[in-house]
């Protein structure tokens, strides 16, 4: 339904600062808009994003209604060890999506 797109370098040198890019498809309905029938459209947004590197949390974001539809995030981390970088998005109406990428650190 909302396949996330993630971009993590496949390999990096130990100690390098790497850039991580994520994009997830989501309408991010604000809860402030009215539909054509005059009824308020209920809020439906992603509220939280967490990124872990080999199980250790490295980045977390709290989204509010002012985040544009299809939330896009880029951030940095230091490549410390080979392993898995995992991403979790959670939101209203039980929304939950996961993704992960492997990185080789030399």
């Amino acid at each position: 339904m909302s396949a996330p797109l993630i971009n993590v370098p496949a390999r990096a040198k130990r100690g390098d600062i790497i850039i991580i890019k994520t994009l997830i498809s989501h309408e991010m309905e604000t809860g402030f808009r009215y539909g054509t029938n005059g009824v308020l459209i209920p809020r439906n947004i992603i509220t939280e994003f967490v990124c872990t590197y080999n199980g250790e949390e490295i980045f977390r974001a709290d989204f509010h209604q002012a985040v544009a539809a299809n939330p896009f995030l880029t951030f940095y981390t230091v490549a410390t060890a080979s392993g898995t970088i995992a991403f979790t998005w959670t939101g209203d109406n039980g929304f939950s999506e996961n993704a992960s990428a492997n990185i080789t650190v030399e």
Partner: protein
Amino acid sequence: MMDRGTQTNPTRRKLLFGASCLAAGLGTPLLLAVRRAQATPATMATAIRQVVGEASVKPGKVKLDLPPLVENGNTVPFTVSVDSPMTPSDYVKAIHVFNEKNPQSNVIGVRLGPRAGRASFTSRMRLADSEKVVAIAELSDGSFWSDSVDVVVTIAACVEDGIP
């Protein structure tokens, strides 16, 4: 026949121009009138207080990168970067972004640490009006630093919510 054509054309053009000017003039206040509850500078100050508490927020160290003129308020790309060495003893704990006139003052809040290497992130926000956007960074020593940008928005986000 040729004469008539050259005579009628300018008047028709003038009429159309006049009509469009009138429509544009009428349309602007209408759009403003139907817009509902917005966050005001006061609610933004309250939202900032909820995050920083009693601490004072100093300008500097933070760089909020936002286009000064935005065509479409539905997706406004922005980058916040903080001048910090990002060592275990001196790093950025959190970055928060606030707006002045959206229905809700908070935009995004991120938590990071010395593992980030670089205290910077990029995302996209919605802007309902030409307004001020503020970014505040919380450092590991407990101090708060901020940067603000005034943005002009030509097509606002959420204008469609005014149409009944």
